């Protein structure tokens, strides 16, 4: 067997002993954040929203700020309702790009992370390239992709996949690297195969970090989809942003911004809830 089987776990004399703690993002994303607990908290959050929205509305009216500089919230909400039938198809296009690109990027990223962490040498070799992919804004490639693939879905889906994949990969790899030799030894003592160790020990241990990666990847994907739409092609929420701003239709512009924030919050909440259900043992 590989020399990893020789590793005797170092135990601490105190503490829970549930493996090492996760770095960087940790799971603060899952432990704190929007974990709303009581009615009082909900009311307080709503009260703050009312105060802010009301305050903005009142001061914009008081100082008679023109709509093309900053429309009041009431105008934005009105635009959201009246323009929604026109915006909806564009929302659909953005979602298609996001789902398709994220599905491709996340699957590839996840599989790569799982495979590559099994081979420390391969991991060391490809690590700088993954880092390059993570740090390079994939938006920069969109003009090139458009040249090659035209103004359809393809360049955007590719950009989303390129943006989300490395995020999923780098976080999942952190998860898969958290080998707890005591738990692996436990499985081996019952005669577990490499595959069983992967599914029953490594994968569940990596799950919290995988979820963090999926969440960040999805949000990066949304960012990239909208950015790519702003670069070229006649459809998508990003295209609406450039169109409305060029036509100085600010209420409509902010209605789209509002939709994008809601999308972002939905992504966050989805993964937060999945994490709470399946990875709450971590916290």
């Amino acid at each position, binding site marked *: 067997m590989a020399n990893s089987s020789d590793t005797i776990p170092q135990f601490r004399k105190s503490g829970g002993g549930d493996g090492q703690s996760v770095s960087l993002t940790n799971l603060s994303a899952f432990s704190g954040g929007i974990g709303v607990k009581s009615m009082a908290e909900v009311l307080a959050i709503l009260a703050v929203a009312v105060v802010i929205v009301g305050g903005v509305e009142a001061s914009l009216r008081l100082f008679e700020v023109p709509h093309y500089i900053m429309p009041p919230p009431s105008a934005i909400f009105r635009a959201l309702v009246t323009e929604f039938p026109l915006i909806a198809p564009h929302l659909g296009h953005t979602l298609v790009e996001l789902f398709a690109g994220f599905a491709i990027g996340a699957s590839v990223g996840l599989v790569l992370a799982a495979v590559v962490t099994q081979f420390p040498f391969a991991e060391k070799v490809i690590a700088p390239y993954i880092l390059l992919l993570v740090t390079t804004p994939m938006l920069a490639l969109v003009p090139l992709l458009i040249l090659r693939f035209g103004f359809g879905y393809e360049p955007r889906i590719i950009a989303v996949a390129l943006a989300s994949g490395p995020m999923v990969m780098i976080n999942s790899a952190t998860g898969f690297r958290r080998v707890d030799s005591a738990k692996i030894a*436990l499985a*081996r003592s019952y005669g577990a195969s490499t595959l069983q160790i992967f599914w029953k020990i490594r994968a569940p241990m990596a799950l919290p970090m995988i979820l963090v990666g999926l969440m960040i990847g999805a949000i990066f994907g949304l960012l990239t989809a909208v950015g790519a739409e702003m670069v070229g092609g006649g459809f998508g929420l990003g295209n609406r942003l450039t169109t409305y701003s060029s036509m100085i239709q600010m209420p409509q512009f902010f209605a789209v911004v509002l939709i994008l924030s809601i999308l972002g919050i939905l992504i966050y909440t989805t993964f937060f809830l999945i994490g709470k259900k399946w990875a709450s043992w971590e916290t």
Partner: protein
Amino acid sequence: MNAVDGTTPKLVVQDATKVYATASGDLKALDRCSLHVNANEIVSIVGPSGCGKTTLLWSMSGLHGLTSGQVTLDGRRIDGPHPDIGIVFQEANLLPWRDLDANIRFPFEIKGQKPDRAWIDHLLHRVGLDGFGGKFPRELSGGMQQRAAIVRALSLKPQVLLMDEPFGALDTFTREDMNRLVEEIWLDSPTTIVFITHSIEEAIFLSDRVVVLSGRPGRVASVYPVPFARPRSLEIMATKEVFDLTNAIKMEIVGKRTSLKSAPAEPERVD
């Protein structure tokens, strides 16, 4: 080995030597370490920290190989994890994402066997954990986690139980509770137990023999028989014999480190 009384030992360690290859060169953790454990005997292994106790236990369990020497169970060489050997690890080593029931089901899932529900329920009841099946490890106290780990190890009815400082992280009272539990379980259904510990009191309370390892590389320095009847009541544990034995072992371990004069009591020497 025990040719005199006609029994063959259950588990035999012969000239176990283990060298770890580390970044800073070879590290010899065990050096020609030999000992045997008879069937249904409880043998404790004590020794200074880092002397190779866990290394020895992992070799006995087949979790890793030896550089030279061998371990045999019933005369057959151990060269990998063995179904008749159960391990209780240092700290409970439960899987935190599984509740207690699922943790105890884990070995059966790996082996593709159906859990023996009646036996597991009996064990859970035995250690006072019935009704806790749906709890997650983080919801259980250290003592409860360790009891769950013992149930997990016993659920497969191993012939040999290897325990690596199972109660090292517990407070004294919980630890004494757990010691009594191990004794009770053993009186219920005797098994062969190898018990690694830092606590000489614990070693004497539980074992038929106490093996003292020397500092690294680990070798068997001496073996002390513990001839007291079981169950070992508080009265027995308070006798002068126990006191003297405790001191003798303590002196041997501490004495080696601080080069004080050697222990007064005469251990049974091993060569």
